[in-house]
């Protein structure tokens, strides 16, 4: 008795592989998994790759042939190529609200100084909704919100400007300049 083939479920397809092809496939998928280490969502990419392998192999099967051998698998893997991790995943992207991303004001795309944008980015909220909420607070607190905003403006650090990023609006640029001026004054006064 001899085992002829292994039935492999690849994402949404099922194919028969002979032993040699199965071993090669296992090796490819293990390599891909280790190349994707640090990617936030390797499962999705791996199942996409499995599907690609299945599609490529079934296309290469001669009519009447049911078992994938190295003759189909090797050129299939060649065409798919080895996994190229994206820069973001290679540098292990910080999670949107993890400790790696501090609460900072964001000048690019800010309306006033970037406090709302900073909070939205930190907590993963919709910035428009947050701004509307802030304006509502402005009315509810009878203008007291302005003081809160000014305090946050002074206290929250600024995120570094994106190199080659979009130019700042007039107000965000002025606010940032003013805050930086005030901070310099204050640190002079306290030292």
């Amino acid at each position, binding site marked *: 008795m001899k085992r002829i083939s292994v039935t492999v479920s690849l994402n949404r397809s099922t194919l028969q592989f002979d032993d040699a092809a199965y071993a090669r496939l296992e090796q490819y998928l293990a390599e*891909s998994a280790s190349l994707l280490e640090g990617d*936030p969502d390797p499962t999705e990419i791996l199942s996409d790759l499995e599907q690609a392998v299945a*599609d490529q192999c079934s296309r290469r099967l001669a009519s009447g042939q049911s078992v994938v051998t190295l003759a189909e698998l090797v050129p299939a893997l060649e*065409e798919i190529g080895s*996994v190229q991790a994206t820069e973001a995943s290679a540098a292990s992207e910080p999670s949107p609200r993890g400790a790696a991303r501090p609460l900072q004001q964001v000048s690019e795309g800010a309306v006033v100084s970037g406090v709302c944008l900073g909070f939205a980015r930190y907590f993963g909220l919709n910035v428009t909704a947050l701004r509307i909420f802030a304006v509502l607070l402005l009315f509810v607190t009878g203008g007291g919100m302005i003081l809160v905003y000014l305090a946050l403006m002074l206290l929250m650090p600024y995120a570094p400007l994106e190199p080659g990023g979009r130019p700042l609006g007039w107000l965000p640029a002025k606010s940032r300049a003013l805050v930086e001026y005030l901070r310099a004054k204050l640190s002079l006064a306290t030292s």
Partner: protein
Amino acid sequence: MTVESKLAPIRKGLLEFLVLRIVGVRSVYVPDILRRLAGTEFATQEGTLYPLLSKLRREDLVMYEWKESDAGPPRKYYRLTEAGRAQLASLDEYWSRINRTVADLGH
């Protein structure tokens, strides 16, 4: 440094922009994208494209939906989200600015 080793990172950086452009035309599945890029300087492979598309999806620039195919299992069709369209517009604009700069300098 050879010319090729200087060009490789430029191509790598532009691939994301080109994928956004292709996905921006109409909803496509990965073999469509590969075909579109094949024969250009940017010819690429599934092993490169899937991680890139996964990243773009996490950044909420593209989304996909499953569509039945005549042969084989359902396929993932990618298209741009609103945010993707906005980012593509600014990349397009930036790209033409760069082109103008490159053309203007060196005269």
